[in-house]
């Protein structure tokens, strides 16, 4: 073998060795990069649950400070008191109204009574925005058969949907009627107490029996939800008949003004229309008494739904 050829072979062997060394170095670097990636990945994967665990620990450690509701003055203004007893012609003109979910008839149930009169049972809570919208038409309808004392101004919770919806509260009120009995139960205030709201009224065993039977399937889709209304075991209203969205941003007096002065507006259409639906149901309970209410166009608006 000639010397130049031997030299060429030696150069080639050195070149192969260099390439191999380079490949080995690249493989080591790649392995090192991969190891770094995997370490980082484990840190990233662990960070998310660790952060959640920290949130849980903070939540457990923080004492439950009571947060006040948006109550303000609980005295009803004269405008609100007047709006709760609107002129009957206003109710007649609104008729069925708009955006109303009327109560559902139920058949063959033992009549619900108190003091020998058909009983209307309302169960709600002051924090609940759907109860807030429900009370307006209910109070208006019941005021056609009797009178309330002790109604107060209230608002739904400020930290729930439809916050601070202006309304009235049945807590501590009295209803007198020669035709009907009414029991309004407000289970809680709009003030936070821990993870719930501060308890207010308690259901009597009789009321609890009604709620357990009729505010549960098959009569209600979701057991125990509020507002719940039982019209003498003849009609049920589970959930609000009027959306609180209509009342968003309105004060008590602005709602009252809408009811009295703007009968074609969405607020009056919904509240007065719903009041007429309740009136039709109440007229079934009272056998059409009093005549000036139950024979009115307002009461006739939902005649088909209540089967009068």
């Amino acid at each position, binding site marked *: 073998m000639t010397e130049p050829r031997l030299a060429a072979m030696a150069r080639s062997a050195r070149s192969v060795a260099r390439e191999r060394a380079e490949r080995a170095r690249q493989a080591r670097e*790649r392995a090192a*990069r*991969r190891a770094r*990636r*995997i370490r*980082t*990945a*484990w840190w*990233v*994967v662990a960070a*998310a*649950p660790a*952060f*959640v665990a920290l*949130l*849980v620990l903070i*939540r457990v450690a923080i004492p439950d400070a009571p947060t006040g509701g948006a109550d303000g003055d609980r005295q009803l203004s004269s405008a609100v008191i007047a709006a709760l007893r609107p002129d009957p012609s206003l109710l007649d003109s609104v008729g069925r109204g708009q955006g109303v*979910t009327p109560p559902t008839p139920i058949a063959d149930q033992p009549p619900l009574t108190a003091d020998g009169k058909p009983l209307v049972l309302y169960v709600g*809570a002051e*924090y*609940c*925005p*759907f*109860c807030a*919208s429900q009370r307006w038409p209910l109070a208006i309808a019941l005021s056609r058969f009797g009178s309330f004392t002790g109604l107060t101004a209230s608002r739904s919770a400020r*930290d*729930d*949907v439809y916050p601070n919806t202006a309304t009235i509260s049945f807590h501590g009120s009295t209803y007198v009627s020669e035709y009907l009995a009414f029991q309004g139960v407000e*289970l809680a205030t709009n003030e936070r107490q821990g*993870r719930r709201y501060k308890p207010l009224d308690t259901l009597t065993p009789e009321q609890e029996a009604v709620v357990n039977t009729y505010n549960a399937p098959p009569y*209600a*889709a*979701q057991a*125990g*939800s*509020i*507002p719940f209304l039982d019209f003498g075991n003849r009609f049920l209203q*589970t*959930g*609000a*008949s*009027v*959306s*609180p969205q209509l009342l968003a941003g309105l004060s008590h007096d602005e709602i009252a003004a809408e009811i009295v002065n703007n009968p074609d507006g969405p607020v009056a259409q919904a509240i007065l229309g719903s009041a007429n639906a309740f009136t039709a149901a109440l007229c079934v309970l009272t056998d059409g008494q009093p005549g000036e209410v139950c024979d009115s166009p307002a009461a006739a608006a939902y005649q088909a739904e209540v089967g009068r």
Partner: protein
Amino acid sequence: MTEVARAGRSAPATRTAGLAAWAVPASLALALVGLGLSIYLTVEHYTAPGSLACPVGDAVDCAQVTTSAQSKFLRIPVAVLGIVHFATMLALCLPMLWRRMDRRLWQARLGVAGLGVLFVIYLIFAELFIIEAICLWCTAVHLVAFGLFAVVVLASAMADPSPFDKR
């Protein structure tokens, strides 16, 4: 231009990523479970009767969570966002896409998984500090989103060769 960069810009990448054997089945299974749970919660959201009602329940109360103000984000029900998230992840975790050495594709998969986990953390924060109630169905979705994120991150890191290798 590196080979990876070229692979990322050119249409079908010719190299195949070296994946852990569990990456594809685990990610697909978790995306499917998450999608199923999100569909269930969406159906519940839209068909739940008595929607004009306040649920009265305990600290573990799905209705209180699914009817809360935080159940919507930019007016879109979060359950619907869950469907979008898991459907996207399902598409990104198909075997043919896992095997493609396309850096942007892998970044997109990591990004969508990460976005999901960030949103889940927000939802857990809302449950703990705003709604103050826990929904077990939602918690199941949260666990699936965390699991999917973990699978995607670890599988991406362990891939050898990987689209993230500098060459």
